[in-house]
């Protein structure tokens, strides 16, 4: 069996790993290394990790020194193995890979053993070119089968590819007709997250610029993070019911002037809605819960988060123990939280402990929304604009004040049946408000 040179590759040690820094080498050229023996230490984020060898033999060359930041998939060292020492070395190369025409059949081949195999036994073996070379070739449209390698054992190096690119730029035609094989090989690698490339003109430097940049404020950043986390982690499902508020509209119109005089604040529809939500949560407490992977935590306190918009953000102050409050009590709480929000006087304690969120999207005239759950709660309900619509009642048409209530829910915790019943309960309570309803 001839000796073989095996490449040790920077492995994909984490799904989100794009690159890692080599902290120090534990083995030096000339040292013997065993399969899975640590050969160097890597640093990524807050982790130090010892990198195991994926081959047994003699370390012949270190390709990336201490302190170097190395992309996943890049070779960092070469190990000379004795024949069948490396199982990876026995794997056939991918059939789709074109054989370099000039390669003598019997010369020792540079076979790469992807350390990814040590972590994922199902990982496909990528063929005889290193990923870095493949990527460089793919990016530049270079056909690797047309290049003579100058590296160890005839291996094609990055420099060879770059030389070929330069040659191509001088007029060689082959690069344009490159087959897609290397690109396909690359496509199997997990895509690192990409930041979209956006050209932004800096400030006043470019007169007549067609765009400008807005700095992301800390609050914007928090909103962005929470929304991202909610959408990433929670499988959202959505449903909507129509509610006939005609009786409630009449009730409110009758009471609002007296209420304003007595309480000093406006009587809106929100306290009625909150009352209805609280009543329905009491009947279906699972709506008031949090997903905790191996269990669902149901909260005994009903603390309603209220989405309150400001000019440039949305905050969700909390009405604690909303179930213990009357409609008037809720009206005062809503008024107070809205005032504090607008004046920027919310305290951290005003924002914490919410268990279910209500959003009054109707304020902006919306009749339909698809809200994102206020993480880590289980559901969010929107109260859309009240509009007069022709409605079939019995076999007659009537003009009624209608509103849509939209519900997004965490489908890990809640299913359509319970949400449907919850929704119906809210509707039932809201439609039940009428002349006899007590505000105190």
């Amino acid at each position, binding site marked *: 069996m001839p000796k073989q040179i095996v490449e040790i590759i920077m492995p994909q*040690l*984490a*799904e*989100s*790993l794009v690159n890692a820094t080599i*902290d120090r080498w534990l083995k030096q050229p000339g040292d013997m290394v065993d399969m*899975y*023996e*640590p050969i160097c*230490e890597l*640093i*990524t*984020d*807050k*982790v*130090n*990790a*010892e*990198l*195991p060898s994926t081959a047994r033999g003699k370390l012949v060359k270190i390709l990336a020194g201490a302190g170097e930041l190395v992309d996943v998939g890049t070779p960092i060292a070469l190990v000379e193995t004795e024949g069948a020492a490396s199982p990876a070395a026995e794997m056939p190369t991918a059939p789709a890979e074109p054989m370099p025409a000039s390669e003598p059949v019997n010369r020792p081949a540079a076979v790469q053993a992807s350390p990814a195999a*040590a*972590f*994922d*036994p199902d990982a496909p073996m990528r063929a005889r070119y290193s990923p870095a070379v493949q990527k460089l070739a793919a990016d530049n449209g270079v056909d690797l089968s047309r290049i003579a390698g100058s590296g160890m054992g005839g291996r094609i190096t990055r420099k060879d590819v770059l030389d070929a690119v330069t040659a191509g730029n001088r007029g060689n035609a082959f690069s344009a007709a490159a087959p897609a094989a290397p690109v396909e090989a690359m496509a199997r690698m997990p895509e690192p997250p990409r930041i979209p490339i956006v050209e932004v003109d800096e400030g006043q430097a470019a007169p007549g610029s067609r765009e400008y940049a807005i700095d992301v404020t*800390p609050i914007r950043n*928090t909103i962005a*993070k*929470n929304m991202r*986390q909610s959408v990433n982690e929670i499988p959202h499902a959505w449903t909507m019911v129509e509610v006939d508020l005609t009786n409630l509209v009449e009730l409110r119109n009758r009471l609002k002037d007296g209420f304003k005089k007595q309480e000093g604040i406006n009587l809106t529809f929100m306290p009625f809605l909150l009352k209805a939500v609280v009543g329905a949560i009491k009947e279906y407490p699972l709506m008031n819960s949090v997903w*905790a*992977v*191996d269990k669902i935590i149901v909260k005994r306190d009903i603390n309603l988060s209220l989405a309150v918009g400001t000019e440039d953000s949305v905050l969700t102050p909390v009405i604690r123990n909303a179930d213990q409050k009357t409609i008037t009590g809720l009206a005062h709480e809503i008024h107070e939280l809205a005032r504090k929000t607008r004046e920027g006087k919310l305290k*951290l304690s005003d924002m*914490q*402990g919410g268990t279910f969120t209500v959003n009054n999207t109707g304020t902006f005239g919306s009749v339909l929304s698809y809200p994102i759950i206020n993480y880590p709660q289980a559901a969010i309900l929107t109260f859309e604009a009240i509009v007069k619509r022709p409605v079939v009642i019995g076999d007659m048409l009537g003009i009624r004040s209608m509103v849509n209530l939209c519900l997004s829910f965490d489908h890990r915790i809640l299913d359509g049946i319970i949400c449907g019943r919850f929704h119906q309960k809210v509707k039932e309570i809201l439609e039940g408000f009428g002349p006899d309803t007590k505000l105190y």
Partner: protein
Amino acid sequence: MKPLHTEWLSRIGYQEAWDLQKRLVGEIDREEREDTLLLLEHPPTYTIGSDRHPEHLLFGTDELKRRGIEVFEIDRGGDITYHGPGQLVGYPLLYLDAVGLDLHRYLRDLEESIIGLLADFGLQAGRKPQYTGVWVGDEKIAAIGVKFNKARTRRGFVTSHGFAFNVKRGVEREGFQGIVPCGISEYGVTSLEALTGQSYGTEEIGRLIVSHFSRVFGYEPVVTETASPHS
């Protein structure tokens, strides 16, 4: 479920705890010992991780001596951090198989344990995408830095180092004023007491974190109450 051997070591010097960690990692590697979670407190200490930014240590040698603070350059990921009384330090020494191993997943799970603990206090903690650790608002309450030691007898890794969770009010001022914590200058540091206004002991919080840690990592905790488990 796998058992998790849990020990409260109370106050222990950094060097002593570090040596203990290295010894236990070897024992776990050789399957002479079950996966272990060490919980403890350090005397005032700065540790500098592999990012090595000495400029983030703001005190000079004399000032350090005057304050009685030791400095160690160690083999965990991350930059400089502070340990001291009133801070709960956890060193999970776990064997993790190489198949399906995800280094970052391990960090996220450590964070998850602490986020779960804080939720018990009604605090909504979270992560900052580029900054490992646990944050409440823009303030850091727990620092994380770990090492994956390649197992010598098996294919996987044994973890060492871990997390430092600020419990007592004042920790955030005492030690962290001397450094730029983890090299992050624009954000502050906080503690459980500062956030809740209540008073807690580190050992008490250590007990609470065991259940969250076990839940997240899938262990059955076995708590050992020995006076000197490292003798």
